[in-house]
């Protein structure tokens, strides 16, 4: 019932040499004492209010005690509030430590610094109703940059030594201190110049050196002679990144070091805008240099992977470069043939890294992976990146005038984002058809011959087995299965004839389904797809290597059945 426990009271009584206070008496006394304590605190709050403070100090309590003609508690005032320690074994009992101090030490201690004299500084809070932009006033428009700026230098000193390995951690600390001074600007210097862009103050010497070195490496691109067969020791930090880098042919230890640093260092936040700018510029400037593009994409991917870094503000700057790498018609040297990816016909392991690096198809796939990474990292609901990109690809795929290579890139990207662009699969198929028509991918070259054969021989049967398998996972399997099977049936029996009859039905179910599950931009895209008049009943076509598992549902039933992955 009361805050004061009887144990506390007994302890207090003990300290006052009143040893005969029984538990019963303490219990009876507790509510009375609590009321008195509360009254004193109330009175003390008045003192705090009239001192225009929100913080209650020990001095206020002393004043309130004096007001009630109670002897104040001596030694509790001043700037050093007593620290209460819990008494072991008694959960509600506290005491103030009272160490014994040698008087001689106190006497011999040097005098403390005298406090600074209180002064008055003037500044204009408003001139004719408009606050002037001087350091003494709050920044007017956006408070966000200020906050961001305040976070950044805190991280800087931690990374300083690691990021560069060159100079010591000194300068960055200084920078942080300088920055702190600029944010907590006291109005001492009334005539100080207006605030400059905060970014300039933030980057420590050390980070600048780091940035310039990394930029130089990125600008130079990978070494001309790729150490393809070089066995390199696995780095502890890089982990999964290694495979990627190898694939991209970035096996030089120097490059690997740079990329590992980009992927894991904690203090890169201040230079992130510079990196994003650098990458955007470099991609635009070196479209004919495939290895370099690979490197840049890998750097981008590393930055995205960095857990200490949020690239959110810079994504808009980075995305155009990635998209260029995916859909641009001309990538790499002119001589590169516009033929379909021949390597699909061969086993990739048999090929050397040099081949990889010279191939724009693989670059497109790489870019698509980075793009997918971005989309996964920045959820569509918040950033809307996915929707926009998906729309772009949709347009690309639906436009028969677009060159094949462009569509290949778009398909790669679509395949990687299986969960979010189901409709793209259907469209992708048309694109794939084109690919096939143009280059003639032969069935035996496929990576999944088993599936392919099944599809080839008994499509309907395969659909049924697959759906049976997926029915296990109830969540994933929508009711849409039925019409699809029907559709396939129809197709099987009368190819092309019943298309018109089936479509509206399918359309309805499909859109309804989508709405139920995830009302979002996909729905619109989906409808768009129908509106575009894409043929939903193409022949069975098969996808290859890069699509992997994603291709399964899509192999099972064409078009809308991919919804099951929504």
């Amino acid at each position, binding site marked *: *019932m009361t805050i004061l426990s009887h144990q506390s009271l007994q302890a207090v009584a003990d300290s006052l040499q009143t040893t005969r206070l029984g538990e019963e008496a303490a219990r009876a006394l507790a509510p009375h004492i609590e009321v008195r304590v509360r009254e004193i605190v109330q009175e003390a709050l008045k003192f705090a209010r*009239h001192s*225009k403070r929100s913080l209650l100090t020990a001095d206020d309590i002393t004043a309130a005690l004096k007001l009630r003609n109670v002897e104040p508690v001596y030694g509790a005032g001043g700037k050093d509030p007593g620290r209460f320690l819990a008494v072991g074994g008694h959960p509600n009992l506290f005491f103030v430590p009272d160490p014994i101090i040698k008087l001689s030490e106190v006497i011999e201690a040097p005098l403390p610094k005298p406090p600074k004299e209180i002064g008055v500084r003037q500044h204009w809070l408003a*001139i004719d109703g408009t606050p002037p932009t001087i350091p003494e006033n709050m920044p007017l428009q956006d408070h966000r940059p200020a906050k961001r700026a305040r976070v950044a230098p805190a991280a800087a000193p931690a990374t300083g030594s690691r990021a560069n390995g060159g100079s010591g951690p000194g300068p960055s600390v200084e920078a942080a201190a300088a920055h702190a001074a600029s944010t907590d600007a006291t109005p001492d210097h009334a005539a100080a110049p207006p605030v400059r862009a905060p970014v300039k103050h933030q980057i420590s010497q050390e980070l600048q050196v780091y940035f310039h070195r990394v930029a130089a490496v990125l600008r130079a691109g990978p070494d001309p002679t790729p150490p393809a067969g070089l066995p390199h020791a696995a780095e502890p930090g890089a982990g999964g990144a290694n495979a990627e880098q190898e694939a991209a042919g970035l096996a030089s230890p120097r490059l690997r070091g740079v990329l590992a640093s980009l992927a894991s260092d904690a203090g890169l936040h201040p230079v992130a805008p510079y990196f994003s700018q650098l990458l955007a510029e470099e991609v635009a400037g070196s479209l004919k240099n495939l290895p370099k593009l690979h490197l840049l994409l890998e750097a981008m991917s590393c930055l995205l992977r960095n857990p200490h870094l949020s690239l959110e503000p810079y994504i808009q700057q980075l995305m155009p470069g990635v998209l260029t790498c995916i859909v641009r018609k001309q990538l790499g040297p002119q001589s590169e043939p516009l033929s379909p990816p021949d390597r699909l016909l061969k086993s990739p392991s048999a090929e050397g890294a040099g081949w990889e690096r010279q191939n724009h198809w693989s670059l497109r796939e790489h870019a698509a992976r980075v793009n997918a990474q971005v989309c996964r990292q920045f959820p569509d609901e918040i950033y809307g990146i996915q929707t926009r990109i998906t729309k772009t690809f949709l347009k690309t795929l639906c436009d028969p005038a677009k060159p094949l290579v462009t569509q290949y890139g778009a398909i790669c990207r679509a395949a990687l984002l299986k969960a979010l662009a189901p409709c793209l699969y259907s469209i992708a198929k048309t694109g794939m058809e084109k690919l096939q028509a143009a280059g003639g991918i032969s069935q035996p070259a496929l990576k999944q011959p088993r599936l392919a054969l099944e599809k080839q021989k008994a499509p309907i049967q395969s659909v049924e087995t697959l759906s049976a398998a997926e029915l296990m996972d109830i969540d994933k399997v929508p009711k849409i299965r039925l019409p699809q099977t029907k559709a396939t049936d129809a197709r099987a029996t009368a190819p092309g004839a019943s298309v018109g009859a089936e479509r509206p039905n399918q359309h309805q179910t499909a859109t309804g389904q989508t709405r139920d599950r995830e009302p979002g931009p996909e729905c619109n895209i989906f409808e768009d797809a129908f509106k575009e008049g894409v043929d939903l009943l193409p022949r069975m076509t098969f996808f290859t290597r890069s699509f992997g598992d994603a291709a399964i549902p899509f192999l099972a039933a064409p078009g809308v059945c991919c919804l099951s992955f929504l």
Partner: protein
Amino acid sequence: MDEDVLDRLVLQYLQKRGYTQAQQALCYDAQNLQTANMTLAPQVDPEKGIVEDLLLYLVADNNQAQYARSFDSFAIWVDNSLDLYKAELQKLLYPTFILCYLRLVKHGASAEAQQMLAKHRARFVGTAQRPAQARLQELQDLQNLSLPEQLESNQASKLFLILSIVNEHLSLQIIEGQPSADAGDETDVGILSGQSMGIMSSVNQQELQLGLLQGNAEDRYAAIKADREAEAVPEADAEGKALSKKKRLALEKEAEKERSKRHKAAEGRLEPQIPLAPRSEVLDTAVLNDFENRMDVGPQALPSILFHTFVNTAQSLNCSAFAPDLQAVAGGFADSSVRLYNLNNATEASADGPEARQAGEPFACMHGHSASVHGIDWMPDGRCFLTSSSDGTLRIWSPELRRNLAVYRGHNLPVWDIAACPAGHYFASASNDRTVRVWCTDRVHAVRILTGAFSDADVVRWHPNSHYVAAGCSDRTIRIWDIRGGRLQRILTGHRAPITSLAFSPDGSMLLSGDAEGELMLWSLGQAKRLASFHDHRGPIWTLVFSHGLSNMLASGSADETVKLWSLSGQAAAGEDMEAALPAAAPELQRVKSFKTRAMPVFSLHWTPRNVLLASGPMDLRQKVLPA
């Protein structure tokens, strides 16, 4: 409880008091009705309370739970009542609850009382946002009361007990007509202030003379200006053509009309009814000459604000005030010192560089008080300033001599605020001893002791005509006294937190008040009613000031580190009868703009005669002071 025993006891009581009719009625009822039919009496009978007390003494022995049970059923009844009446009925719940609680405590059933509190706490605290905080505090206060003896000494319970004595529980007035529209708005306003409505309404019906004094500076300036204009009635129009006779006549007529209007206004001015100090001629002419340079501020023409930051205070600055001649700013500190800072030098410092850097330092650091200084104000002539301290004394200081001129003793407890009379010579102080005192500069004892507040008087201000003093109190009321007779003239209730600032409108018809929770209220003094309330500030409003001249601009400064500007349009009616005569535009308070400082709470504001706003406050780097 045995019914018979109860009946017998009541019967004995009635016999003892000689209530034969009641006795008969009781006997009759006891025979006929086993269950008593409860009816709600329109007016509560004081006698009934005594009977209830008697009953309770009997009941309380072993049936305290009855109270809680009956309150529960009452609450359920209210909850299930028609929506139309629910809002009004719900207002009854809280006072009833408090009374039940106190009854239970009084009769030693604190366990039941606590139970009841725990059960219904959410209902009272959870309803609205604003009153809930005040209630939370009240309930917490109540929760502390668990023994009957504490009731005697506790301030909160005293308030409630007074209430219960004055109108024996609740005085319900049954009014025919529509249920009131503003259901949630005025919940428990006025009820918990400890003042009975009857006393309040009789106090508030007294007439006030709110007119300005004769011959005030504004009037004289207007007269001079008008004369000048009259002389300048043009003989010729813009093209240099001589005016036709007709036109000139029209102009003259207009001027005449203007003059008569002014005369009428002057007739409304008051003769001073208290002896006032003679005006100083030199100062007067200076003031009048400066009127020419005054800028009219308004929502379209916003003023400039010059902020004065006290640096290195370590939270020791308690109050500050600007000198009327703008030469200095004075600060009162927790270390009992009073410091003066030269404003003009400080301005030069920023321009001139190192050799003038001394200007930021205090040019006078004066000691005299023996405890922290809480209130500070300048005399209107700027030659002296006054301070009040928690050592209970008031002091008057001369910046010229840099020393203390006189000490005024009288308050025994801390003096929270001090205000100089706009006509000079007098000043008023508000203290923790629940009094407001009026002093003359030439007498050591107070000339008036104004009482009535239930709790500390926190802030005090003078009416522009110097005849009234308003004080904001910790009991959440604003009280206005006539200093001639020393009578309480107005009690304004409605705030839900202690008052922290007050300001009279320049025409004297309205009062603005700010409280510790950041609520701003506008009151009409003549009608003693609230005109508007705003809850814009997020911390205590430390200061409120009106601009000079025709445009009524208001500035408020708060602990939430903002200065807000408001514009007040229209004029309050002087009284009920005047309302019909003067169809003036209803007063309207609008927020114009808010200025955020950088970690500087605003302690004081001051409009210069030319309508530049000066603000001051300490640099408050809380992250260094507050524990993490």
